[in-house]
């Protein structure tokens, strides 16, 4: 009869996981993730923060589909600096992986992203929105109000805001397609075909295809010269007017969305994905890390970031099981923004907007 460990390993628990009763303090190089276990819960396993398999590499690319479209929009339409965005995303990836020990997703805030693209917003207003939303979720998490607020806010409010934003964003896309109708329709059809394959990173393929088509037909700007070197984010201090503008347009629609999708549902999905392992993913911690991440990223030119249920499901679906996938994502972004420097990141600007 297989032992309990063998049984659990068959249920997709990493080989490095150990019974909680076997863990000894001080023997782990990386301290175990502190989580209080309820007395009536089944025995859980202390999981290692790091594991190595090809699935970690594949899983680290699992959320590119949700990451790239918003980032490309922020760089090409809003005019944000790629260095600030990618550095802060990379840091948030690494810190989330270190803290949670699972392939925790870090994504652009979608509702705020939609508002940022629809409304005329500048990098200062986005920094202002990041500071306000960061302070809000940090406060909500630290006081424990986040769980109560999630219960009080009706789901229909978030649904109504999402639907309105989604339709506005889709309409913006249609307007951009109008500028080069045949190319936009062709790219949309190409993406629809790619969507038949669930594991295909559709956005990534479409962006590369868009750049190639734009260059071949001469309708995109010239490719930049790559200059290698280290570049650091520039400080962005928003004015009071920019803070108000960012709060009105980006923060308000994002709060119910983050509360539901990025905090409550993410915590629930994490419990489903890692049911027998100890990890610190809960509503309160997710609110605190979202708040801290945005508060620190906003003045460094970072974009609005949160965790996401779809993202963590995507990482796990593509094979990630530990924080290694997050470090690989952080490394990829760090190499992109620092080693290849800003000129390389201007490649994002090569993507014709009507694609």
């Amino acid at each position, binding site marked *: 009869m297989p032992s309990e460990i063998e049984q659990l390993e068959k249920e997709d628990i990493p080989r490095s996981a150990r019974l909680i009763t076997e863990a000894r303090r001080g023997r782990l190089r990386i301290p175990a993730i502190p989580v209080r276990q309820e007395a009536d819960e089944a025995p859980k396993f202390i999981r290692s923060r790091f594991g190595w398999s090809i699935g970690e590499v594949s899983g680290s690319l699992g959320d590119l589909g949700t990451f790239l*479209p*918003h980032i490309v929009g922020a760089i090409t339409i809003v005019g944000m600096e790629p260095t600030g965005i990618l550095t802060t995303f990379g840091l948030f990836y690494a810190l989330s992986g270190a803290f949670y020990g699972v392939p925790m997703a870090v994504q652009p805030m*979608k*509702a705020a*992203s*939609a*508002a940022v693209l629809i*409304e005329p917003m500048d990098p200062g207003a986005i920094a202002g929105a990041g500071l306000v939303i960061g302070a809000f979720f940090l406060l909500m998490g630290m006081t424990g109000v986040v769980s109560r607020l999630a219960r009080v806010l*009706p*789901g*229909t*409010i*978030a*649904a*109504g*805001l*999402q*639907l*309105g*934003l*989604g*339709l*506005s*964003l*889709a*309409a*913006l*896309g*249609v307007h*951009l*397609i109008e500028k080069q109708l045949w190319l936009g329709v062709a790219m*949309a059809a190409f*993406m629809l075909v790619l969507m038949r394959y669930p594991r295909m990173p*559709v956005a990534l393929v479409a962006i590369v295809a868009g750049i190639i088509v734009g260059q071949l037909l001469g309708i995109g700007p010239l490719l930049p010269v790559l200059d290698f070197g280290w570049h650091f984010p520039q400080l962005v201090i928003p004015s009071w007017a920019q803070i108000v503008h960012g709060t*009105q*347009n980006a923060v*308000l*629609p994002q709060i119910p969305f983050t509360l539901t*999708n990025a905090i409550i549902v993410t915590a629930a999905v994490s419990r489903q994905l890692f049911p027998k392992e100890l990890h610190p993913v809960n509503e309160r911690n997710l609110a605190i890390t979202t708040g801290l991440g945005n508060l620190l990223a906003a003045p460094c030119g970072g974009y609005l970031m949160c965790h996401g249920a779809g993202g963590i499901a995507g990482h796990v679906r593509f094979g990630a099981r530990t924080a290694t996938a997050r470090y690989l994502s952080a490394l990829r972004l760090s190499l992109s923004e620092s080693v290849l420097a800003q000129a390389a990141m201007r490649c994002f600007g090569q993507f014709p907007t009507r694609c």
Partner: protein
Amino acid sequence: MFSGLELALSSKPQDYRNGDLFLVLLMAAVGVALNRVAAFAVGLPLAYALKRGWIRI
């Protein structure tokens, strides 16, 4: 365009009761026509009014 459609699709609640669908569509209409603040300001009191039975759709 696809991001917007995906965002709109994810707005579908698990089950609609009473005036939930009305409220979602009203908020979307206000959000598209005016802005998100107005949609929130309209939607929140209306959601509670529907929940408590003060309004019936």
